[in-house]
């Protein structure tokens, strides 16, 4: 069984169906963004609740729009 190409893995895992050249171009463009995101990855944020809120009662408070 042949090993999958790395770009094929990217395509499968991330659900991106782009020609290899285009995908490589995007990966290169993402490099600078990744540089910033790596800063986040170094942080221990274990006990900090993300600033997203699950509000299960919201639909029941919502009034129908006219």
């Amino acid at each position: 069984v042949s090993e999958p190409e790395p770009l094929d893995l990217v395509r499968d895992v991330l659900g991106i169906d782009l020609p290899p050249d285009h995908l490589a171009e995007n990966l290169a463009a993402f490099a600078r963004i990744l540089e910033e995101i790596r800063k986040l990855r170094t942080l221990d944020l274990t006990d900090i609740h993300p600033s997203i809120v699950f509000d299960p009662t919201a639909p029941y408070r919502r009034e129908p729009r006219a």
Partner: protein
Amino acid sequence: VSPALWAEPIEALAPRIRGKALSPVELTQACLDRIGQVDDRLLSFICLAPDALEQARGAEAEIARGDWRGPLHGIPLGIKDNYLTADMPTTAGTTAPGITFPRRDAAAVTRLRRAGAVLIGKTRTHEFAWGNVTPPVRNPWALDRVPSGSSGGSGAAVAAGLCAAAMGSDTGGSIRMPAAACGVVGLKATFGRVSREGIVPHSWSLDHAGPLTRTVGDAALMMGVLAGHDPADPTCRDEPVPDYTAALGAPIAGLRIGVCRNHFFEENQEDVQRAVEAAIADLAGQGATVVDFTIPNLAYGLAAIFAIELASSTAYHDVSLRAGRVRHYTPDVRQLVELGRFVTGPDYLKAEQPRAVLMEDFRRALDRRGRDRRADHPDHRVEGGRMDGPHRRPRRERARRLVALHVPVQSDRAARDLDPVRVRSAGSAHRATGRGPSVRRGDGAARRARLRAHPRVEGSGPRTVSPRPDRRERGR
């Protein structure tokens, strides 16, 4: 000499309209004439309301019989082209085939109409509000420059006097940056203050609605209409709306004004830096206490906004991405939409975590009780890769949501680069001094007719498919 009608702020126009000294029809016609004279070069409007004068006549009739609705009654306004409108098409700046938007009014548009405003047209946006250039709009201060964006059409239109104010939207600076580039006031209202219902989403938890105006007073008048709870926007807060005009003109002596020194100041041009420092000194000179502070955790802000904005935008555009429609997007927007796929789930959630920390940092910095403590108090440090401090404890208090207001300050750069399009604008710190080629006359009617007949960017075709019906059309 009185300024031209189209150069006056709402603060000056509204009392005259209320007192029947100024006709909304006359004012709207002045704006339409102005658009006809200069917008073939600015390109700030993508379409004009075919019934603008009819709206104005309706306002005039109501006011004549004593039914004055408030300070926006009869005032011509521009609406950014990512707000849905019933009487004008919405493009969100895209020419990609197969993408259409419902013909109905966004919540903010409904509020403005109820206030009696004359919605004169739609202003151009960077495609899907994903960019800071807003092609093909030009900056009225210098036509070879961009107006910034993504609310670049609104910034240019207000600066050039094509409408009294305009609506913008701001995810990562899209009201503030064009306001800065065009020398007008831009208000990114507090998250949850103005409903985003009916605004084409970009990043759900970062998108804000707000006005671009000539004066701070005008922004207050706009907010008096725009602010308020809307159950159709799940993030809209059900809180009392204050009188935003109450503090206008009040002395600032005794106010504590914080200056966050590790944000905004890093890469300013020298003249901008001088102007900002002069403005800060002026505030101190008027009796305010200026307190410099820093928020070290802002070092993670760019990473957080990258992860959140990219992932959210890609989620919104996912259907178009899978259908291949994004190949018709402009190359920069297409790439950004595709890049969001590389942001992993953990990265996204880790971006939402420092966001909570930053809100708490700013709350503490702005807390009067903390006047003797610096914001970079050890409580707030990130040490050894671990964010520490009071955020680690459960908090019952809701995190403060920050508002952002851009106001123009004098810059010697402006006078040098003035274009003849730029006109005297009451309330703006910029002053027009340049003279140049005379404005072409007589093409106003042709320009307006062209806009009405072809509201899309030239070259775009008709759109027939509606891939993203709004919530109401889905019956929810």
